[in-house]
Structures are given as C-alpha cells and as structure tokens.
C-alpha cells in the first residue's frame, strides 16, 4: 500500500530515542534458592506411576518456570519513533503459561498462570528452607 510505504519512509528517517527501564532482580533471587516438590506430579517413565519429581527434575522445572513467567522490566528498552509511536520489545516475557498436574483422581488438571508464585503453588513446589 502506497500510504504504508510513505509512513514507513517517514518513520525510518526518524531519530529513535531509547529509555532504559528498571525492575527487580527477583528472578536471580529465585535462581539462588532451592526448591522441593511436595506433591507427586511426575509420571515415572519406567513404572508409569506418579511420584515426586527428583531434585534434578524439580530444579529443571523451576528454571523453566522462572524463565517462562518472567515479567521483569529489567533491561527492556523503550523506543520512541519520530511519529510518536512508543515500542518495547518484551519478547519472551509477559507470557501466559499453561501448566498441568495430576489431580487427586489421576486426571490431568490444567491451569494457565502468569506468575512464578502461581505456578509453584499450582504444582506444589515450595522453597526448601532446610537447604538455605
């Protein structure tokens, strides 16, 4: 579309200003903590039965949840284009995460969460204070 190209050309000529955003280092704090699973959410590949995830599996799960529920604004760049448009690249953050856990009756229960706390609460993962 001609008008699109004109707009693009105008904006491409624009000087872009950047503004660094700030946020907490909460994710790093979480990575430094130990977590433990309190409910059997893992299907054992050998036996097919439910069991608690191993410490290694729990750590991998926590790392995954930290990454996927990242809502930090740290290091995000706010860019202002010449036409007044503001933009922030949040790629990989502010995700909604669908989780699954076996219910008390063995059926999978699904829940969409947006925060680490929701995720760990749903999956029964708690901070292991004996390891601190």
């Amino acid at each position, binding site marked *: 579309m001609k008008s699109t190209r004109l707009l693009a050309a105008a904006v491409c000529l624009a000087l872009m200003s950047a503004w660094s955003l700030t946020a907490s280092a909460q994710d790093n704090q979480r990575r430094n903590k130990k977590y433990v699973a309190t409910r059997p959410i893992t299907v054992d590949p050998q036996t097919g039965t439910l069991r608690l995830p191993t410490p290694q599996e729990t750590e991998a799960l926590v790392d995954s949840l930290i990454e996927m529920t990242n809502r930090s604004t740290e290091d995000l760049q706010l860019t202002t284009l010449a036409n007044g448009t503001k933009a922030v690249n949040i790629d990989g953050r502010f995700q909604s995460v669908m989780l699954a856990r076996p219910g008390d009756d063995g059926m999978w229960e699904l829940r969409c969460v947006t*925060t680490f706390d929701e995720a760990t609460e749903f999956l029964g993962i708690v901070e292991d204070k004996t390891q601190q």
Partner: protein
Amino acid sequence: MITKTSVSTRTMRVLCAALLVFGFVTTASRPAFAAATIIVVNNDGPGEGFNDPTPAAPVGGNSGTTKGAQRLIAFQRAADIWGATLDSPVTIVVRAAFDPLGPNVLGSAGPTLVFSDFPGLGPGFYPGAEFPATWYGSALADKLAGVDLAELEGAGPGFRDINARFSSDFNFYLGLDNNHGALNDLVTVVLHELGHGLNFLTFVSPTTGQNLAGQTDIFARHLVDDSSGLHWNEMTDAERLASTTHFSHLFWDGANVTADVPQVLQLGNPEVRVLAPAAIAGLYQFGTAAFGPRIGNPNVFAFVVAAQDDANAAGPATTDGCSAFTNAAAVAGKIALVERGTCGFAVKARNATNAGASAVIIYNNTANVNAAPPGMADDGINGPFVTIPAASMTRADGLAILGQPTVSATVGVDPTVRAGATPTDRARLYAPFPVSLGSSVSHYDTVAFKNLLMEPAINPDLTHRLKAPDDLTLELLRDLGWFADADLDGIADEADCSVHSNFAPTIVIDGENTGVANILFSNGCTTADLIAQLHGAASNHGQFVSDVSHLTNVLKDAGVLSNNDKSAIQTAAAHGN
C-alpha cells in the same frame, strides 16, 4: 417500491456521506473476504518438535503421518480458527516451537512487542491507538495502525508478533475434531494461549501493581473493581495490587462482552454463603466440581457438619472423607465438610452422597494451605455416583467454619444473576485470593457457565468456537480494538458505508472499463460502491444515468475526478443496461 423522490434522497445521502468525510486513497487489491492471515513459523530444529519424525496414525481429521506433522497441523488449525475470526490487513506471525519443557508445563505464549501512541493511516482509515499512553500488543497494534509497526520499529519485515512454546513431553490429543476423550486437546490449548498473544492480557505486574513502563494498557482500561468503581488505569499501584486478589469484585466493562453476556452465561450464579453465625457470615470463595449436579441443583440451605471417617488405608485422617462416614446420621440432610487430600475429590463426594448429605464442601488441606479453592476433576469412576452439589474452599475458610459450634449455610445459586457475571450482566474476571502473591486477572472467572475458553482452567466441554452464543473471547477482543472489518478497508463494519467494498483498481460499469481510478472514501465506500448503490436504487436506466451524472459532477467539483474521468464514467453508465 422505489420512487424517483426516494432515489434522489438516497443519492444525496450517499454523496454527502462520501464527501463530508472527504479523505480518500486509491484502492489496491484486497482479499475478497474478511480474515487475518496467521503464519506459524516453525522454530524447531531437525528431528524435534514440529519436525519429530516419529510415525503417527492419522487421528481426528489430522492427516499428518508423523508426530511433528500432526503437531504443526493442529497448531495451524488453531491459528486458522483465529484467522477466520479476526480481521487484520497485517499478517500475524507466530513463532512456535515444541520443546522438552517437562510434563507439567504444557506451553506458553505472549506478544513479543508492545506499542503505544501509534497513529492511524487517516483520515478515517485505520484509527490508530484509541487511547494515548496505552500499551497494545503487537498484533492488535498492527491492526489498528494498518501497518506492520514492528517493521517501522526496525525489527525487519515479518517480525514475529507472538512467541509460543509448547511441550513435546506432554501427551496432547492431536486430532482436529475436539473428540479428545480423557486427553487434553492441543487445538483448544493453542487457541487459549494465542488468545493471550492477541492481547487477552494485562501488562500490569501482578506482584507490585505497577504498569509497564509507567503506562497503562488497553486491557487494564476495561477492568473495573466494583468496590471502588475505578478502572485499573485510574488506580494507584497499591490499589491495583489489592484489586488483583479482590475475589468476585473485578469485572469487564467493555460494551461487546456486556452485550453478549446474556447469550452466553446462564442465569444462576453459584455461591457458597454462610448465613450464621454473624461472625463468619457472608459470601465465600469456592471452586466447582466436574462431577455431580451443578451447584443450584438443587439449592441447599442447611447446617454444616464436619464429616468423620476412620483413619485407615484409604485415608490416614478422620477428616479426609476417604472412607464411609462414621457420623452419617449427623451428616444426613446437612452440608458435609470434608478435608482435601489422599483420595480424589469424587471419592469424598461419593462418600458424602452415601451418607445422605445434601451437599459437600471440601476445604484445602495443609499441603494446599495457601491455595485458592481448586476445580475438582471427575475420575470417571466415583463421579457418576455423586448426586449432590460439591464445592471446594480455602483451608482458612474451612477452618473458620470448623471453629464455630453451629454454622448454617447455603450452597446454591442466585437465580437472578448469570454464572460468572455481576448482577448487571458484566463478565467477571478471575481474581482469587490465595495468601501467596500473584494471581491472574487475565482470565474470566472460573464460575462462568457456559464454560469459557479464557478461563484459567481448560474445561473438557469447550468447543473450538470463540464467540456468542458459545463463548465470549471474540467479544473481549472486540472491546480491545479488534473491530470487525470484513473488507479490510480500515473502517469498522458498523460504520462502513459498504461492508464488502469493490476494490477493483478502476471503475467498471456493466463490463465497460472506464479506466478511471477507483477511489476509497473515508466512509468506507469506493466510487465503484457508490455507482453500484445508485444502480441498485434506480427505478430505470434513465434514473441511473441521471444519478451517476450527479455523483460524478460532485466528485469533479471536489477535485476527485477530472473532466475526462467524469466523461468516461458518464459514458459507460449511459452504455450500460
């Protein structure tokens, strides 16, 4: 019957509509019908995810012959359903992958960029951002701007609008027919997550209440807390944070959702209410069960009695209700109160049924001390034997009831209020109250019924349909700015002079190409549309020629047509039948 007078009136109305808002652009080729094109970019490497070569038998209309192919076909089906539902002139790019996320993480999705203060193409075409200083997700912003903003921002053409990752460890149902049985339907899960990617979410921090980069977002502008009457964009951070867990007080004020709530949500808002003693009387947060009759069938008004059973192999506590109740005589006709844990919800509810209880409330155990009341799944074994309504409750609320010598309560419905709505038919958002920080407001309330795609839980009875009378997802996106635009001219259908405009590059009358450029006016009609409308309204050929003459004279006087253009159109009109 069309009279000469009425034709003249119509003619002038059309002309005025076209010329009072006299922005125009030349037309370009456009699709013949509305849609948004959603491209799924396979971000997996060889041999994994979408490229997993493991042979697979066709299932549920999915003709893929490998697991990877079936995943891609099912994913694309969800994207196509969204594409057929929304309208956008800008291709929506979804970068997707299947990764080994572990069996408990099914997937995630979200926008990759947010924009604010973007202009439209104007005047009249594509409105741009409705509100200043307000974030919009990339795909929605593109639709409102009429251009690919990511490209303008320097990200390059075709930059992804939505990032999505799903689990290659989870056993999804990969059929396209929603006949998933006990498995979880990938198409439904992808529909849900893409819904978030299309802006069914707020960017407000659920742990601090802060806006993203100091600006509100378009979702938050429609969130209202009925205890204060304030929209989220009108609140302080602290007020927003409090509202995040303000159970049953957060609702959506968008006009499209509100208009369709009566079509979708059924009358009979379920509630658990303690009637006495006064110290703990009031509405309580609760979760619902997938087994037994729905709350309200029937309404139960009764005393609450804590169930007792033997501590045995079925359940180690005398409060867990995992075996036959030992105080069945006391429970009969009452609301049984049972502690969660060890055995399934349906087992407890079946034992309560067997004891003659009129309803059962299952409160969280210590392992779920800070959790919101859960949704209670059916095990398919005990669930069919449950004939009484069941609800779940937080541990704190359960202990509060246990702490009173006598408690009367109701487990029922308010027949005047729709399930998941306010008394004024506003859809509620999910704002549970766990003790721990964090809860989601980017979903409809879990008590909504019919069940909705954008509740936090994926219920097994969901369809693949996104709008009324089956669902309210499209309506919410409409409120955000995903306006219907069947001909993709950037003008909402409700304000469009022609919903299905003729975008031929030149004006053709009865097969005769005039060679005159076909202009799109800012009221949504092209010159060809106007001429077609005159043709349809004219009572005879002479009237049509006369009306076209009027139209072209006005357009010529306005500088839209040259003398030659005018003559060419008038000549073609005269030649036609």
